[in-house]
C-alpha cells in the first residue's frame, strides 16, 4: 500500500495554490491535513500528478468571526476548532459534532475544509454544514464564489467544485438567540462513519433536520412541530432512498430516521428552550 508517484509543492500564498491548480489541468489536488486523501493515495485509488500543500499558507489558517458568521479557513485543523475556547459558544452544533469525527489522532491533522472537500455522505462536517445552511467559499484564478452546502454536495464524494477551484473556507451562521441545536450519530463503533447521523436546528421560524449517512449526500428538511412530525419523518425516511450495505439495512436506516430523527428534533427544541431560559436570566 504505497502511493503512486506524484510531485509536491508547498505553497506559501493562496495565489500559488490557485496558479498550481490552474496550470495542472485537473491533475493537481490540494493536500491539507491529508486524513482523507492519503488513504486513497496509499490504496492508489487517487493518482494525482501534483499535490499542493496548503498548510503553510498563512492566509488560510484563520477562523474569522464577524458576529454573524464563523468563517473557517482551509488550513484550520479539526482539533484546533474543537479546542478553541469559544467554539461551543459561537456555534454549538459544530462543537457537538467535532468529537465524533474519526479520532483525536486524525482530528489533530485533518482540516474542516478537507472533510467538506472529500464529501463523504456519512461524514459529520458535511452534515453540519447542510444543517446550518453553511456555505463553501470557492476561489480560482478566474473567480470567487460561494455555494450553499446543498448545492455544493452533488453526489457521493462528488462536489460542485471545479478542478481549478480551491475551497478557501467554509462559513456557518453563528449562534442566534432563540435557536436550539442537537446532534446524534449511530455508528457501529465510535469514530466510524455514520450509519445515520442527525443534526437538528430549531428556531422560532422553523425546525430543520439534516441527515447524513443515508442518502448520497446529506439531506435537510424543514419539519412540522405538531402531530404531523411522525408522518413527515416517515416521508423523509423513504425519500432518502436508503440502501443496504454491510453495516446496516435500508430498513434499519429508515427506522433510525423515524425514531432517532424524532429524538434529535425534540432534543433541539429542548435545547432552544434551555437557551432561551438562560438568555432570560
Amino acid at each position: 500500500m504505497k502511493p503512486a508517484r506524484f510531485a509536491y509543492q508547498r505553497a506559501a500564498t493562496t495565489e500559488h495554490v490557485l496558479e498550481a491548480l490552474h496550470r495542472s489541468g485537473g491533475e493537481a489536488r490540494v493536500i491539507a491535513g491529508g486524513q482523507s486523501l492519503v488513504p486513497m493515495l496509499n490504496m492508489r485509488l487517487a493518482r494525482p500528478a501534483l499535490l499542493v500543500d496548503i498548510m503553510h499558507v498563512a492566509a488560510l489558517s484563520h477562523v474569522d468571526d464577524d458576529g454573524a458568521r464563523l468563517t473557517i479557513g482551509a488550513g484550520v485543523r479539526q482539533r484546533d476548532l474543537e479546542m478553541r475556547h469559544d467554539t461551543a459558544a459561537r456555534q454549538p452544533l459544530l462543537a457537538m459534532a467535532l468529537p465524533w469525527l474519526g479520532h483525536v489522532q486524525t482530528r489533530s491533522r485533518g482540516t474542516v475544509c478537507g472533510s467538506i472537500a472529500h464529501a463523504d455522505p456519512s461524514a459529520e462536517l458535511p452534515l453540519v454544514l447542510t444543517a446550518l445552511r453553511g456555505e463553501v467559499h470557492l476561489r480560482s484564478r478566474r473567480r470567487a464564489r460561494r455555494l450553499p452546502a446543498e448545492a455544493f454536495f452533488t453526489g457521493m464524494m462528488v462536489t460542485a467544485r471545479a478542478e481549478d477551484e480551491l475551497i478557501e473556507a467554509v462559513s456557518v451562521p453563528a449562534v442566534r438567540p432563540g435557536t436550539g441545536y442537537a446532534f446524534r450519530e449511530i455508528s457501529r463503533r465510535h469514530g466510524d462513519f455514520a450509519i445515520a447521523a442527525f443534526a437538528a436546528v430549531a428556531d422560532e421560524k422553523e425546525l430543520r433536520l439534516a441527515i447524513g449517512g443515508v442518502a448520497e449526500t446529506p439531506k435537510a428538511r424543514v419539519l412540522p412541530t405538531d402531530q404531523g412530525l411522525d408522518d413527515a419523518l416517515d416521508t423523509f425516511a423513504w425519500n432518502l432512498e436508503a440502501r443496504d450495505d454491510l453495516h446496516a439495512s435500508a430498513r434499519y436506516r429508515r427506522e433510525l430516521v423515524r425514531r432517532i430523527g424524532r429524538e434529535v428534533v425534540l432534543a433541539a427544541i429542548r435545547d432552544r428552550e434551555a437557551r432561551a431560559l438562560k438568555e432570560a436570566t
Partner: protein
Amino acid sequence: MSRQAPAVLDAGQRHPVRFTLNGRKAGGEAEPRMLLHDFLRHVLGATGTHVGCEHGICGACTVQIDGAPARACLTLAVQADGAEIRTVEGLALAPDRLSALQEAFRAHHGLQCGFCTPGILMSLDALLRERPDCGEAEIRETLSGHLCRCTGYTPIVKAALAAAEALRVPHHA
C-alpha cells in the same frame, strides 16, 4: 510574502527532508510519495514506530507531530519537513530509565506482543500532558484510535490511569 512560486518537488526524484526527531536534528532524502513511517523506519532507522494498516485506522504508527498525536501512515515525509517529531524512542528518561507511563505499562501488563504499544504510548503521552486530570472515559476515548489484539485493553486502561496518578503525584512514582 514571496511572489515567486515555491519549487515543485519532482515526482521521481528524492528531495531533502529535515526535521527534529526526539529533540535532535534528523534528515534524509525522500521522494514526495514516501510516507512518514517509511522515512522514519527505513531512512532514519528509527524502527520503534510500527506499521499496521497504512490507512489510518489501527494507530500502530502514531507519532507526535508538533506535539499532537498523528498517524505517520497518513503523513508524507515531505509534509513533515521542518516539523517537530516525537516517537517512542524519545519517551524513556534515559536508556535504562523508563518514563512513568512506560513503567506503568510494565507494572500493569499493558502490553503483550508490544507491536501496537509504541503508537498507544505516543497518544497517551500527549493526553497525559494535555489533560493530567483525565479519567477512564477520556483514556478510553483516546485509546479508541488504536487497535490492540492482545490485551483486551483492560490492562492498558489500568496502566494509563496509574501513570496519570503517578504524574500527578511525582514522588509516588
